[in-house]
C-alpha cells in the first residue's frame, strides 16, 4: 500500500525559528500512527502540514503521491479531518455544529454521527456550550466526520480531557482504524502511545528520530531520547520498557 502522507525533506520556519528541520517520513494509510515527542518537538506542526494549516518553507508534502501544495486546500481539508487539543464547539446547538459545513445534513444522519462517536443522539438539540469537555471533543469528532473524511488527524486531542473521556476517545480512534479510516495521533504521553500505536513517528527538535512499527530496540532508544532529553513531560515515563501494542494496560490512564 502506498503512503498516505509522505514528507520529503520538509522544513518549516516560523519567525526565525526552525520548527521542522528537513523531515523525511512516510505515514501509512492504515491503522493508528502515533507521532510522539516532547513539547516543541514539531509534532503538531507535522500534523498541521498534513491538512495545510501550515505550508512548508522547504521540501514537499505528498498526499497519495500528489504534491499537497498543488491540491485545492479547502477540498483537501474535507478529506483530512483534524481535531485539536481543546474542543472547539461553534456557537449554537450540536446540530448547528454538525451542519457547519454540511448545511443540508438531516437530523437522522446527525443522530447516526453522534451514535458513531458514542454520544446520545438526544443531545442534537442541546447547546454545544453545555456539553462536558469529553462530550464536546466527541461532538467535534462527529462534526469532522460530516465531510466523510479519509483520515482523522488528532493533535493532543485528549490533553484537556479527564481519564474516562480520554479512554473513550482512544477507543474511538481504534474503532476508526479498525473500520478502515487511518488515524494520525499526536501525543507526548508514552502510555497513550502504547495503547494506540500501530506505527510510530518519534520526533525531537523538529526532526524525525525514528519511524516504523515500533517493536524493536531502536524505537525504544529514539523514544528515550525524544522524551527524556529535554526532560519528559510524562512523569511516568519508563524508558526501559519495550513498546507493546497489545499491553493489558491499553485503557489505563495512569
Amino acid at each position: 500500500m502506498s503512503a498516505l502522507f509522505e514528507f520529503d525533506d520538509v522544513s518549516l520556519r516560523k519567525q526565525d525559528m526552525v520548527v521542522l528541520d528537513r523531515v523525511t517520513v512516510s505515514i501509512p494509510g492504515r491503522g493508528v500512527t502515533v507521532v510522539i515527542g516532547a513539547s516543541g518537538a514539531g509534532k503538531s506542526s507535522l500534523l498541521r502540514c498534513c491538512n495545510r494549516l501550515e505550508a512548508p518553507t522547504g521540501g514537499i508534502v505528498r498526499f497519495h503521491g500528489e504534491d499537497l501544495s498543488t491540491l485545492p486546500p479547502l477540498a483537501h481539508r474535507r478529506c483530512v479531518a483534524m481535531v485539536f487539543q481543546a474542543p472547539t464547539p461553534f456557537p449554537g446547538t450540536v446540530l448547528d455544529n454538525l451542519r457547519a459545513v454540511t448545511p443540508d445534513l438531516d437530523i437522522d444522519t446527525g443522530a447516526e454521527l453522534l451514535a458513531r462517536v458514542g454520544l446520545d443522539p438526544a443531545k442534537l438539540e442541546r447547546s454545544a456550550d453545555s456539553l462536558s469537555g469529553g462530550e464536546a471533543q466527541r461532538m467535534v469528532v462527529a462534526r469532522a466526520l460530516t465531510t466523510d473524511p479519509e483520515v482523522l488527524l488528532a493533535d493532543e486531542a485528549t490533553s484537556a480531557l479527564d481519564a474516562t473521556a480520554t479512554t473513550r476517545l482512544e477507543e474511538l480512534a481504534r474503532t476508526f482504524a479498525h473500520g478502515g479510516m487511518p488515524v494520525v495521533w499526536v501525543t507526548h504521553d508514552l502510555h497513550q502511545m502504547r495503547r494506540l500505536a500501530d506505527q510510530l513517528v518519534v520526533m525531537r527538535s523538529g526532526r524525525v528520530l525514528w519511524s516504523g512499527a515500533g517493536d524493536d530496540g531502536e524505537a525504544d532508544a529514539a523514544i528515550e531520547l525524544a522524551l527524556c532529553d529535554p526532560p519528559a513531560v510524562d512523569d511516568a515515563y519508563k524508558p526501559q520498557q519495550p513498546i507493546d501494542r497489545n499491553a493489558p494496560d491499553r485503557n489505563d490512564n495512569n
Partner: protein
Amino acid sequence: MERDVIGWSGLAASLTFVLLAVALTGRHRLGLSRGIGVAVGRSLVQMAVVGTALVPIVDPDTPLLWSWAWVLAIVGFAAVTTARRAPAVPGLVWVALAANALVGATGLSVIFGLGILELSGRTLVPVAGMIIGNSMKAAVVGAARMAESVADHRPEIEAGLALGMTTRAASKRLVRSSLRTAISPQVEQTAALGIVFLPGAMTGLILAGAEPLEAVRTQLALMYVILAGVVMAATTTGLGTLARLTTPDARVLPLDRVA
C-alpha cells in the same frame, strides 16, 4: 446677525476648565496630568499651524488644486495613523489608504457632486477632514479589533478552516463582532443627534451667524455622509485586516505580536 468670534482671551479663559481637569486627575492620582498638558499643548501648536496654513488654502484666489493636495495629505495621515494602531498587521497602511481614499472619494462626490455644498477651498478641506477623520476612528477600531479577534480566537478560526471552510466563513462571527464594535458608536451618535449633543459643524455654523435650520440641514447632510463613510471604512479596513492576517490558501499567519 453679528458673528460671535472667540478671541485669544476667550481661548485662554477656556483653558481654566482644563486646569480643573488637571486638578481632578491629580486628586485621584490617575497619572494623566502630564498627558493632559501635553495634549493641550500639542493641540494649540497643531491648530495654530493648521489655521495659519489654511488661510492661503481657503483664499478664493488660491487655485483649488492646493485644497485637493491638502485632502490627499489628510488621507495619507489617516492611513498612517490607522496602521500605527495595529502594528502587527502586515501592510495595513495600504489597506487603510485604500479605505480612506474610497471614503474620501465617495463622500466628497456626494457632498459636492450632488450640489449639497458648493465646491471651494473653504468647504472642501473641512468637509474632507470631517468625513475622513470620523472614518479613520472607525477604521482604527475595525483593524485593531479584527487583529485582536484573530489572535484571541485562532483555535475557533482554524477549527473552521480544518473543516474546509473559507477564511470568511470560518471567521464570520468574529468579523461581525469586530465590525459592529467599529460601526456602532457612529450609529449611536447619529441616533442621538440633536438630543444629546449638537455636533461641531452645526455649532460652528450657528456661532458663525448662520440660521439654525440652515445649520441643521448642513449638519444632517454631513452626518449621513459620515455615517456611510464610517461603515465603508470599518468594513474595508476590517476585512482588509483579516485578508492581511490570512493567506490565499486559507491559513492564519503567526500573530504573536497582536496578542
